[in-house]
């Protein structure tokens, strides 16, 4: 955790409400986005955010050091949302890993100059068809760049299962590239100029 974050976290633990407000401001977009991807319900996520920050405040003095505020917040939000939905009887007899959807659509700007257009389209199609849990883990791992340990906590699975789930998602993409295997050497030749432009 970067020093500034550590500073804010410690100030919050000592009862500084401005620090709590800073945490809220810094993470609002991320938390809201994640919540909406999980539920598709702005109302539920708003309530969950409200509960999350009140819980943070109520338990500030009992709060320990956290390695990663972001992971901690995402994990907590997910649990609160789950319990809220449960309370509303929207989910029954489900465990927290059973969020039915994860709203995640992949889209690359349609550009004819894109050397890999065809591959991307296939990749996107495959990514868009992943089951909810695989989409979520791709999102946490490669978009939010969370560590496996934090992902495991967030999704209420073991560390080992989190590796496996990422692997499974990646595996289903593997086929697409393999199919177009022969094209790859061609791509390499055209790649160098593209790099130089950057």
């Amino acid at each position, binding site marked *: 955790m970067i020093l500034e974050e550590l500073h804010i976290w410690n100030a919050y633990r000592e009862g500084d*409400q401005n620090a709590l407000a800073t945490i809220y401001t810094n993470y609002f977009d991320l938390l809201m986005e994640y919540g909406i991807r999980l539920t598709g319900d702005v109302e539920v996520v708003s309530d969950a955010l409200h*509960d999350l920050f009140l819980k943070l405040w*109520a338990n500030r003095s*009992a709060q320990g050091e956290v390695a990663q505020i972001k992971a901690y917040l995402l994990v907590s939000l997910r649990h609160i949302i789950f319990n809220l939905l449960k309370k509303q009887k929207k989910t029954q007899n489900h465990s927290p890993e059973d969020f039915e959807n994860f709203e995640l659509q992949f889209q690359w700007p349609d550009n004819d100059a894109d050397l890999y257009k065809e591959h991307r389209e296939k990749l996107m199609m495959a990514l868009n068809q992943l089951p909810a849990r695989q989409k979520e883990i791709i*999102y946490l791992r490669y978009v939010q760049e969370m560590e496996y340990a934090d992902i495991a906590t967030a999704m209420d699975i073991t560390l080992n299962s989190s590796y496996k789930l990422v692997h499974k998602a990646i595996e289903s993409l593997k086929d697409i590239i393999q199919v177009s295997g022969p094209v790859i050497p061609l791509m390499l030749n055209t*790649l160098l100029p593209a790099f130089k432009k950057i």
Partner: protein
Amino acid sequence: MNVSDYSQFEKADFLEDAFFREWVFRPTPESEQFWQEWTTAAYPSLAAFHAAKLELQTMRSIVPVSFSKELQAKIWQRISSDIAQPKPGIIRLHWRKLAVAASTLLLISTAAYWLFQHPKASTTSELADLKPHNHSTLTLANGTVITLNKAQDTLNSGNAGVRIIGDTNLITYTMPSSNTTPVFNTLSVPRGDQFAVLLADGTKIWLNAASRLRYPDHFSGSKSREVYLENGEAYFQIAKNANQPFIVHSKGQEILVTGTAFNLNTYENILKTTLTEGAVNVNANNNTVKLHPGEQAQFDISAGRLTVDIVNVTPYIAWIDGWMYMDESSLQQVMEQVSRWYDLDIVFTDATLKDEKLGGKLQKQPKVTELLAILEKSSPVSFVLKNNTIYISRK
């Protein structure tokens, strides 16, 4: 960074490589140069490199979800007003906005002040009528009932090898020296008392007044450690043992624990499991919820409904140190606690008083009259104590 590191990489290896990911997501002139040079060599892993890069880029190309910007300010407003909402001195049990009832009584937290200022300010009387204090009892496997009224000598659970060491308000079980089948003991705490038991596995359980706990004298040879809170309230500090999960049974609810601390209150028709540390699964009516610290499971026995709430845990475990927290608590709830603390019955001479609201915190006093004096000073009630009964009437 050694180039040869990457020459045999497969796609998955690239995806797991932090340096590689960092370059795809946030290229710097240095990393650009590194990978540009690397790709000029015809390594066997080049195809995997391109596949991985393409995948990472594509994974990041996600359609944004939309929500309004005003929402951020709106939610924060709710949060900050709920943080600010408790009046000075009022202990908030729950975040949910409670309408402050006009009948809210004054704070009662300054017990000592009132006692010093008004040493005799009380209409409570008839102390002579108070019966002697009841003691907790231990029922052994063979049915023998032992009164725990003094620091005991070593007892026997009914099982040859298991010794129980008695102390003031705590009994301690020791592991048997040889293999024996566990037998059950029952610890009953009457109104007016409080007691703790240290089980053979190191688990400590505090029992509040009017509570009953049944448990084996040791846990050897079983898959799980199971105890039964048959009545009342208890705080559990469970010794960690992942191989032998701890299960607390209570009125149709089960709490599954590996190592943690929590409070279980079963006084009312809603069982409240409040988690202070670790994690537990609460199971009731074929429903399971997982609790995290700061959360409370509420099992409504009559409705068969199991829900989870976020709470400030302090008020729920304050009883261990002899405190009662009130936040919009009804006078009836407060008096029921007084009844349990001092082993006295309560009678409302004016039923409308039951719903009077109280806030603040109240510490158990050595004498009930002291406590009632504090309550009288801060509320529109007066008490008469007669035949071990507190009669409550309007001032």
